[in-house]
């Protein structure tokens, strides 16, 4: 009887050691990419649109911001399987 109980306990231990290991690869896919952002370099408070140079600088800055948003963003992700 004792032997039977010991065998059952041994089987319990074996069963526990066969539990699946959590997938660790999913946790490291997130990255902080905020450092790569192009910051808006013009101080709007020092900007006067009556000044041609200021205006051109502002338009150029806006174009630079937009160039950071390519058409290819949010393209379909394709098949998952």
């Amino acid at each position, binding site marked *: *009887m*004792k032997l*039977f*109980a*010991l065998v*059952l*306990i041994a*089987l*319990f*231990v*074996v*069963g*526990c050691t*066969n*539990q*699946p290991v959590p*997938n660790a*690869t*999913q946790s490291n*896919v*997130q*990255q902080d*990419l*905020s450092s790569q*952002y192009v*910051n*808006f370099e*013009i101080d*709007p*408070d020092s*900007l*006067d*649109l*009556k000044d*041609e140079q200021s*205006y051109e600088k*502002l*338009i150029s800055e*806006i174009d630079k*911001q*937009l160039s*950071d*948003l390519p*058409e290819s*963003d*949010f*393209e*379909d*992700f394709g098949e*998952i*399987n």
Partner: protein
Amino acid sequence: MKILVIVAMLLAVPALASAQSNTFPRERITDNACDRVNTRIETIISRYNDQKDRHIKRYEEIYQKLSSVAAKHDGSQKLKADLQKLNDLTKRFASEYTRFVDELRASQQFTCGKSDGQFRAKVASSRAILKQAKYIAVSAKELIRTDIKNDLQELKP
């Protein structure tokens, strides 16, 4: 002694059942496929998250800076109205994007051979929401590129 045997049996039966289900070859193949699909979904979401953060950061930056410009110039009502449109589009985009991620994540509950039909339906639904989010993002970009830039030009003497 009888109690010890009963306790040992209670412990052993579920543990054995679990161990068997994890070691049976076909089950193991399914588990690997589940892991692969789940990892792929997380990779997709991570990639789109980077894009979403970049877009929202750009829209908000342009909104804030140009709002300051508008506040300093007379006759900037049209610019202010278009900046409000940009703000609304940014919020709609963020909301739609969150809906996309939620829907794609919801598909993960069906990845392990539980329901292929429901998995496909969730993926298809998330795909449609992503398309809508992209449409809003393109609209915001177009608003800046055309209307807002024209508004700025009109403020010139």
